């Protein structure tokens, strides 16, 4: 029994209809003769306000509005990985096959292919009592991803039938459960309402870093698997490049990249490059672990609002299989603007800068869906979602509402800086204003897996950078030549840290990814150098003798000159550094 009403007002993506007293809030509806997809966002008696996810051009009064009986949902089954969807999970490749290069209304296209057969490998045993989240069997979705087909959430009972190993479409029944004396058939295809978080058994602490291969992130402002981070920055500061770097090199099992109101060409960039790039640990193309949600800036603004939820619902599904998922959202500001635009058309009372008063709670709800969890199901599986949201503040001013509220709900803040970007210091993450709330939680991992002195070295390096910051104010007044040599050494080391360590060129084939081991060794060389040089300067060596040491150029070039698999060369470099300093020291005697 679904509701049937008719259009009484059209204002862009917002449509009002009457006769919908039988529908429910957030129900998905089909609007007009073309069956445009919409969602009920306000319901008063028979009057409903609908956010329509497709262009409403040509829509007229009195056209029909049909309820679908279910909320806006994502389809979950094998076939997600490697796919490109719009904000409401319409498959963009399939749409292109129907409507050509330009997106037009294509009715009846489903998110996932119903004909394709997947090899299902049953793992659950008939007779077992299963609950939602328990694994029924697996499908090798790509070389990189084993898809674990789970009992739908909410269902439980005795497994009475399970398909034998073989090829099935996602709509064929692969298992039957006996629930309260009745049979419940289960298919691979399941649905989940995007705005409802998928439940879990228990939240756990995040203690493992998401290794990104980006030095300023991993070493200075690390993020945990299951963590949340904001990347605010003015246009051109490097938000997208950073997110793409993380999508490429981070050690997540699954990457969900949500292009939310951004450029079409950036999506193609991902689509072109990911199939060719190989995962550093497995050697398989990165596309085999990636899902793209692409609702670019020229696509309907209301679907942009939905895209974030579509992305995170997909992330939760893979989390529940027991995977570490990383979700990038570029840009959450465009999502917030979509919210504002729809709110404006609803004539709601605006709060800060025209944004609706529920902006902070929506942001909080979104980031709340990240974390490490013990998943549903009887085995003890854990999975995690880490979300990284770009923020595009107007005029690059971080005091605006989206940046400020995002800051409240995320634990890592990578502040991109126009001045650094202008000086082509990439990634332009400002080391003075950025922070990570995970350092203490992750130090143990570094201690056990890389080096026990990790935290000591990173704190030491940070102190040098801080000292530089203070000295810089003096330099601005008197020039560097006026400083004593010991202080000039601080400036010199800080310069080396900035150029040789913090700066990392995403376009350089070697520097684009830096292993944790290489990061630590590089940092150690620079910090040790500083201490040794400080020693010889104290003994009277002039600073220019230090900066003229031949090893300086090697240090400057180590990031792109020494590949991750030739770390012995860094050890040689370290020896050379010691030798250089000793030579200088000897010359003083």
């Amino acid at each position: 029994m679904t509701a049937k009403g008719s259009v009484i007002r059209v204002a862009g993506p917002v449509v009002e209809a009457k006769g919908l007293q039988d529908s429910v809030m957030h129900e998905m509806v089909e609007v007009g003769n073309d069956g445009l997809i919409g969602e009920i966002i306000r319901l008063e008696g028979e009057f409903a306000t609908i956010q329509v996810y497709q262009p409403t051009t040509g829509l007229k009064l009195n056209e029909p509005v049909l309820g679908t009986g279910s909320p806006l949902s994502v389809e979950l089954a094998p076939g997600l990985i490697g796919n490109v969807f719009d904000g409401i999970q319409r498959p963009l490749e399939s749409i292109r096959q129907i409507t050509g290069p330009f997106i037009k209304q294509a009715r009846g296209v489903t998110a996932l292919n119903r004909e394709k057969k997947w090899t299902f490998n049953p793992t659950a045993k008939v007779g077992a009592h299963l609950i939602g989240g328990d694994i029924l069997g697996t499908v090798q979705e790509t070389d990189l991803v084993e898809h674990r087909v789970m009992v739908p959430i909410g269902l439980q009972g005795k497994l009475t039938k399970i398909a034998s190993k073989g090829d099935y479409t996602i709509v064929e029944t692969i298992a039957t459960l006996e629930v309260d004396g009745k049979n419940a058939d289960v298919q691979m295809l399941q649905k989940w309402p995007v705005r409802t978080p998928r439940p879990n058994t228990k939240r756990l602490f995040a203690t493992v870093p998401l290794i990104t291969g980006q030095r300023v992130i991993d070493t200075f402002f690390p993020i945990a698997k299951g963590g949340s981070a904001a990347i605010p920055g003015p246009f051109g500061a490097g938000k997208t490049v950073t997110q793409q770097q993380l999508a490429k090199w981070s050690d997540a099992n699954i990457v969900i990249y949500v292009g939310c109101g951004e450029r079409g060409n950036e999506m193609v960039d991902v689509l072109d490059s990911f199939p060719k790039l190989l995962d550093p640990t497995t050697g398989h193309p990165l596309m085999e672990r990636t899902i793209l949600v692409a609702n670019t800036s020229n696509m309907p603004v209301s679907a942009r609002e939905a895209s974030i939820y579509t992305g995170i619902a997909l992330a939760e599904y893979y989390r529940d299989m027991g995977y570490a998922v990383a979700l990038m959202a570029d840009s959450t500001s465009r999502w917030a603007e979509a919210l504002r635009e729809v709110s404006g058309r609803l004539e709601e009372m605006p709060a800060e800068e025209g944004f609706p008063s529920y902006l902070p709670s929506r942001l909080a709800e979104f980031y709340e869906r990240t974390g490490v969890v013990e998943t549903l199901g009887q085995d003890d599986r854990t999975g995690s979602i880490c979300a990284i949201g770009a923020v595009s503040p107007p005029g690059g001013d971080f005091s605006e509402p989206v940046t400020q509220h995002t800051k409240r709900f995320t634990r890592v803040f990578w502040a991109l800086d126009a001045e650094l970007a202008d000086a082509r210091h990439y990634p332009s993450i400002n080391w003075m204003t950025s922070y990570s709330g995970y350092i203490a939680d992750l130090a143990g991992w570094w201690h056990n897996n890389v080096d026990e002195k990790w935290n000591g070295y990173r704190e030491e390096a940070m102190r040098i950078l801080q000292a530089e910051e203070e000295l810089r104010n003096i330099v601005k007044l008197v020039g560097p030549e006026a400083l004593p040599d010991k202080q000039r050494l601080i400036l010199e080391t800080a310069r080396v840290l900035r150029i040789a360590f913090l700066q990392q060129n995403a376009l350089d084939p070697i520097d684009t990814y830096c292993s944790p081991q290489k990061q630590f060794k590089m940092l150690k060389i620079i910090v040790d150098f500083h201490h040794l040089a400080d020693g010889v300067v104290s003994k009277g060596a002039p600073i220019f003798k230090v900066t003229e040491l031949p090893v300086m150029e090697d240090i400057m070039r180590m990031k792109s000159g020494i590949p991750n698999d030739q770390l012995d060369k860094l050890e040689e470099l370290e020896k050379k550094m010691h030798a250089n300093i000793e030579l200088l020291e000897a010359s003083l005697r």
Partner: protein
Amino acid sequence: MAGIGLEYKGVSSISGPIIMVENVKGVGYDELVSVKTQTGEIRLGKVIQVSQKAVTVQVFEGTTGLSPTATRTRFLGHSLEVPVSTEMLGRVMNSYGEPIDGHPRFFTDEKRDVNGYPLNPTAREYPKDFIQTGVSAIDGLASLVRGQKLPVFSGPGLSHNELAAQIVRQAQIRNANEPFNVVFIAMGLGHDDADFFRKSFEETGAIKNVAMFLNLADDPPVERILTPRAGLTLAEYLAYEEDSHVLVVMTDMTNYCEALREVSAAMEEVPSRKGYPGYMYSDLASIYERAGRVVGKKGSITQMPILTMPNDDITHPIPDLTGYITEGQIVLSRNLEKQGIYPPIYITTSLSRLMKDGIGKGSTREDHANVASQLYSAYAQYNSVKSLVTIIGEEGLGTRDKEYLRFGERFEKTLINQGKMENRTIEQTLDIAWDALSDLPEEELTSIKPEYIQKYLPKTDTEVK
């Protein structure tokens, strides 16, 4: 379809460019409306809201002279379409694509919706063909590629027109001879500026390949919302149906945005920053995202929008939102212009995001990326040294800083600065760059691979030890 063709007499309210018509049936959202004034003049508008009470119409030519009782409206049953044809090359059109140069009407029956449709991201082809503009600062440091949208951020009175004309004149794909057209879109442009462009196209004989869409300063501001869309509709036709490479020059986007603000204010919408509507980002994106390349199509659309930054302020919503959509920007500086440097391109804030795949071995030269990134960081260093000089004088500088000072001055005078008629190849540009870099000690050139330093750095006497 009850409403089509029926004429309604009288409107219930008029406010700015917006009118409301009551008791209308069968009208669709976004539909085109013909509005007849009491003197019989026909204006066009579009439906921006339909409700049971009334239909809201935005009148493109404005509502001046409309009377509530005598105005007649007719709803046309489709959204605004403009003619498209190769006949439009060499011609001058208004915002509806109608000829205004006194020459005959077009024979074509081909019409397209001015709003176009959003390009499916999976149908895009990543732009990577280098366009040589012959302007060193652009080719060397913020390279333009086919299918890119690269705006010029200028200020009132700066030489953006000369630069745009020079680019139109000189732009070429190296080693290629493919159909190339220009769609020139003027929004709120002064007659002098429009004439400047027309003359410059005529002088070089380019005019036969140029379609000009003019909305001049004294034309109705609301019409400006249509002008770029009409021009881009033709550009899409030329690129995707006629296999042509199209360069679209749009000037001045600032006037466009002001028209948008005017309409928004008349509709009493909640304004966002500086009174501009909250949807300006999406609106501008619907224009800028029409640049690109399409899989399986030979043609391409490259956009060069020009805007003047109010108060030379790059954080103003117009440059800001533009920069958030386009693939980089070329920023002109009043300071450089004052020093007599043409083109006054300030490379520090300029950027081309699509440069990475368009340059290098096979398209420009192997050393290009390294050289550009070294120039950027060296020039940043130069600028910070320069600000130090203003406080402590040149004497207080260390040797390294003095070298940067010398480099920067040479770089501005020889690489950035060039003649308005001077057309440099990319090799010439890179050679000039190496000359400037030779002012720096070799160990400073850490962005450049040692083998390129070996190969391209001019050997000075001091180095031959």
